[in-house]
């Protein structure tokens, strides 16, 4: 039987236990706590092919911690699986902020998943690095949001302008545009149509299709009937495969000089390996390719470490498109924290607005809504691909940079049919 004195002792211990987190969480101990960086990654679901980005996050965290952390504090990643579903995103970010007390947030992958979190970030005035969400901050215009992706200013309209610059240089007058009925592709197609109009090109065919369309033969016949000289395509990986195969099966006019533009898929090892030589001649967007104008010791070091991890995890062993920019997200956060000597969102944002940051993909400066000041989306032409061996893509010459001019490594091979046969 417990005495009253024993009961009071028990109450005192319980109260101390309950109070401990509050005491430990006070400012006295704040400097010893790790800096928490929160994100959702699509580990499962239709966008799970983007999960190799997490390797970029983890390599950055390991590098920072090996160098002593940020402001003398270790960095800790808090990552949840959003299952590729936009419906899961708001709850995940509420938890990252209110329960996990993250200091910095990285957005989910892409525009579709990022859109639901933007009102929350704006309302709570939080600091966030955006991950590949095209035009992700154009509506919210939040001054503490910064893109890790190289879309550039006015990205909704201009990110694929390089394709149209190439078309213009080839004297293209008639263009066809097709896109998947999804946020990213719709934005790309709408922006493309606007740029085509600006360049005085006639859009002879402009049509969208539902996601997961498996046969494009009807659409390719209709495109051929329009007699275009360039075809701008905004598609997702499965559609990209079906379109490339459809062109091989149905054929395309010899007048077509450029084919591609905004096809998602040919940037990934899975499609490069499965389609192999069928990709020859394609002119498509990319973020990084191992061409001489882009190689630096820093990016080489990144891929030297990324590849064995990716192979072990069974994800894209090339990882050119996404993982370097996930590492860049960490570098941007690190620069903001160390530069402002704070994890205060306003101070971090002010630093990034005022200073360019050196990263493994080059120097980045931001506009007032967090776009890169200079668009650095690549237009590359795939050529000289033989067989399905992925290793050939690590060598220069297979993904030749045509645009931007500052990184150019070759001239356009045209028309498309001739380039396909090369």
């Amino acid at each position, binding site marked *: 039987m417990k005495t009253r004195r024993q009961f009071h002792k028990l109450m005192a211990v319980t109260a101390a236990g309950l109070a401990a987190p509050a005491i430990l969480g006070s400012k006295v101990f704040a400097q010893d706590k790790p800096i928490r960086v929160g994100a959702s990654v699509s580990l499962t*679901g*239709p966008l799970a092919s983007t999960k190799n980005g997490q390797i970029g996050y983890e390599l950055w965290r390991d590098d920072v911690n090996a160098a002593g952390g940020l402001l003398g504090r270790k960095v800790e990643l808090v990552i949840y699986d959003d299952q590729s579903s936009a419906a899961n995103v708001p709850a995940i970010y509420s938890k990252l902020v209110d329960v996990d007390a993250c200091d910095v947030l990285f957005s989910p992958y892409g525009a579709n998943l990022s859109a639901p979190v933007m009102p929350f970030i704006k309302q709570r005035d939080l600091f966030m690095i955006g991950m590949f969400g095209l035009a992700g901050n154009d509506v919210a215009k939040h001054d503490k949001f910064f893109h890790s992706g190289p879309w550039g200013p006015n990205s909704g309209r201009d990110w694929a302008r390089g394709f149209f610059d190439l078309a213009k240089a080839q004297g293209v007058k008639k263009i066809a545009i097709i896109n998947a009925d999804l946020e990213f592709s719709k934005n790309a197609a709408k922006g493309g149509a606007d740029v085509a109009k600006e360049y005085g090109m006639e859009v002879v065919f402009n049509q969208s*299709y539902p996601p997961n369309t498996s046969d494009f033969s009807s659409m390719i*016949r209709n495109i051929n009937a329009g007699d275009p000289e360039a075809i701008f395509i905004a598609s997702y990986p499965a559609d990209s495969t079906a379109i490339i*195969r459809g062109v091989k*099966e149905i054929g395309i006019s010899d007048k077509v000089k450029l084919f591609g533009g905004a096809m998602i898929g040919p940037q990934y090892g899975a499609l490069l390996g499965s389609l192999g030589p069928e990709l020859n001649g394609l002119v498509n967007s990319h973020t990084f390719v191992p061409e001489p104008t882009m190689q630096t010791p820093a990016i080489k070091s990144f891929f030297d470490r990324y590849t064995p991890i990716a192979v072990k995890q069974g994800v894209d062993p090339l990882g050119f498109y996404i993982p370097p920019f996930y590492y860049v997200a960490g570098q941007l956060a690190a620069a903001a924290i160390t530069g402002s000597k704070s994890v205060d969102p306003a101070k971090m944002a002010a630093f990034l607005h005022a200073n360019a940051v050196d990263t493994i993909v080059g120097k980045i400066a931001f506009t007032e809504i967090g776009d890169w000041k200079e668009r650095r989306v690549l237009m590359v032409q795939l050529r000289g691909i033989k067989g399905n061996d992925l290793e050939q893509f690590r060598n220069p010459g297979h993904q030749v940079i045509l645009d931007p001019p500052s990184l150019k490594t070759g001239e356009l091979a045209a028309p498309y049919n001739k380039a396909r046969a090369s």
Partner: protein
Amino acid sequence: MLSIDILLNAIVTGILLGSVYASLALGLGITFGILHIPNIAHPTLVVAGAFFVYTLTQWGLDPIVAALIGLVPFYLLGVVLYAFYSAVFERKGGANVLQSLTLFFGLSLVIEILLSLGFGSELKSVSVSYIGSSLKLGVLTVPYRLLIPALLAPVTIAAVWFYLSRTNSGTAIRAVAHEERALSIAGLNPASVKRHAFGIATATAVIAGAALIMVGPIEPFAGRYQIGRVFAIVVLAGMGSIPGSLVIAIIIGIAEALVSSYLNPSWSPGVAFAILLLGLALRPQGLFGAAR
């Protein structure tokens, strides 16, 4: 833009796509149409079949040969799945539709996760010599990528229908759906008959999987995009009408191809459901189903 070659090519493409849809719907026609078990995991089982085929093609086998090899393991998988379903629900006083849907929804998720863990989340496709080339017949250009899988459906459906209508065990499968007790009186075990039927339905998933992966690349979650269409085919054909499902699938395929060619491809996903609503309004028991 109404040229005769675009029209003819659209119709032929629609027939081929419809035939592939019929392959996908065949197993559901047995489990849902005959056994009245709402197996919404069937499209995911088709995707599992596609991954099975993909695995064997990595060793140099043709997808169709790989599918034939998969018939027995998938039949056994179906037998095990039904045994589990029966143990959980039927022996405990019968399953209501909601419980069954929950079970098969859960099964579908488990299969998707297992496929993700086993194969990763990247798209997988097969490389066969006939994929990428076409058969030219006058103004028609018929991709072998669609033609070969499309030919699988009528052959499989004919084989299944022959079995169901011309053999004793097939007749027992059709009978179990109508009067289970009468089957018991005749000395047959209804659970055993259903288990066998579920095994056959699951075995057809590997044939449909071969068709699916020949048409285009697949990923573990690809089954989700087919659920609505295959249910529409089975319901509109009339519950239990296996040959009717081929006709309905081809009608849907042609309608989708024509809508894609002449209106807007974005409208094509609604075609199956528009036809379903119209068909059920005219004939609630389905176009080939018997009135009850």
